[in-house]
């Protein structure tokens, strides 16, 4: 018999299984073709920048595929359960609503981790194919992948939050909106500075700190140029993602716990 404390883990594993059953991981086949094609072509069309192209293309694809998965699966995590009426039988079991949210989140995150890990192996294999020996700064590529995962963890939490009270279509739009705002957070603050209007400057500054700053997690260019990513940035970004995910999941739990499911 499953104890109450293990319930989020059960939900998480089932969410992962469901994603596999839904052939979500089929995107890996497309990714494999992309990397094989890139590895073969890059040697023909570029001189001396094969490594750069493979890393840029590979990491961008990992980020893009992950983003699409996080948003499109994330927004259906709760609403799909309600639509199929499976949520009612689930909540009849000894599971609290916040545990359900935590389990769903962990399940999708696990899916994304597996997906990203396989794609990372693909990038490494493509790098091997172009006949390049291991270089010490290759670890920066792995750090960049880790940063992509952190950003995906954040996107997943946001998608799940909207899924708790909105339709999948609207949730997708909201999540994409927040993501785009987060990517351009620095520019928003920049606009405020240019206006030289204290009120607008203050407002854009508040927006800058409120929205998730996805720019923090972009280390693709740094990794492809073999530049060092400081250790302090790794823990700061990790902590940032944890704190932000905590905020969003707390809000999601609060909203979902008060939602009338009748």
């Amino acid at each position: 018999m499953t104890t109450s404390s293990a319930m989020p883990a059960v939900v998480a594993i089932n969410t992962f299984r469901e994603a596999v059953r839904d052939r979500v991981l089929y995107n890996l086949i497309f990714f494999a073709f992309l990397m094989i094609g890139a590895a073969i072509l890059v040697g023909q069309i570029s001189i001396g920048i094969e490594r750069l192209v493979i890393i840029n293309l590979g990491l961008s694809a990992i980020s893009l595929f992950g983003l699409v998965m996080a948003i499109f699966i994330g927004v259906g995590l709760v609403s799909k359960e309600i639509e199929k009426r499976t949520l009612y039988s689930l909540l009849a079991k000894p599971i609290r609503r916040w545990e359900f949210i935590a389990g769903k989140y962990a399940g999708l995150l696990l899916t994304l981790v597996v997906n990203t890990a396989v794609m990372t192996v693909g990038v490494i294999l493509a790098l091997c194919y172009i006949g390049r020996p291991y270089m010490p700064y290759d670890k920066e590529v792995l750090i960049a992948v880790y940063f992509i995962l952190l950003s995906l963890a954040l996107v997943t939490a946001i998608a799940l939050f909207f899924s708790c009270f909105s339709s999948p279509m609207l949730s997708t739009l909201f999540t994409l909106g927040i993501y785009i705002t987060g990517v351009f957070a620095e520019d928003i603050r920049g606009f405020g500075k240019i206006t030289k209007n204290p009120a607008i400057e203050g407002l854009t500054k508040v927006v800058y700190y409120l929205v998730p700053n996805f720019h923090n997690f972009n280390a693709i260019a740094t990794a492809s140029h073999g530049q060092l990513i400081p250790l302090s940035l790794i823990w700061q970004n990790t902590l940032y993602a944890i704190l932000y995910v905590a905020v969003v999941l707390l809000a999601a739990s609060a909203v979902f716990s008060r939602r009338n499911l009748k």
Partner: protein
Amino acid sequence: MSLRAKNRPLWTALVAIPFLFVAIATLQQRIDAETRPPDNQKEELLLPSGALLKKLSMGYDSLFADLYWTRTIQYYGERVGTRHANFDLLYPLLDVTTTLDPNMIAAYRFGAIFLSEPLPLGAGRTDLAVELVKRGIKENSDDWALYSDLGFLYYWRLKDYPNAAKAYLDGSKTSEGPGWMKLMAARVAEKGGSAETARMIWTELYQTTKDPNVRKWAATQLDGLAALEDESHLNVLSEQYRKLFGRYPASTKDLRDARLLAGIPVDPAGYPYAIGEDGKAHLAPESPVQEPKF
């Protein structure tokens, strides 16, 4: 489930989220300090080819042009007035913007002023400014304002009066070319290098531009020209004073005491003019007014 248990996540969220956001903001400040030190910003333009971007934009080239134009203004605004300012990306940004939207007159006009303006207020690249404006004229041959800008560049930056006169004359022939351009062409050809002609050019620029940055800069130049004119008058009065008292006045106060002036004249920034030992009037050292050089 009891009401209390049901409300627990809500209260936890209400209490915890503000604290978490404070922690997030603090952390973001640390990340900013780590990754984006203001004096060490790496400048990069990911897609420097406007032609390529136009193809990639899949019909949204005008939207992309707007984005690049916004980015250009932001780029300039972030750097102007800062120490060690450089505007290396100003031309590439304007080039991409105008390639994506060749009819974006504002971008050509902005480029004419701030590409040619010397550092630290501009890129100091009059050659690129002329190239950009000429391209603008090629794409928008009936826009008189671009001819006016080209005339300005030849007159003010390059001191090439025949080409400046030609640009003004060409502008006057456009369908909406104002009458003053023909006058300006004649005047530039006849009296190139005079302060009066310069004032006419800056005044027209001030009145015709819609860009607040350009207007502000034109106003600064007009202030400098007004100061030059004031100094010229004061120099005449200073000579009169010497004829009366056998020496130059020590300050404008002496001119007022000798009833040559009704009061103490001030420059456009409100600072009284100073008079040197040679009897020549000049701006007070603390005055922010910048006088143009001929």
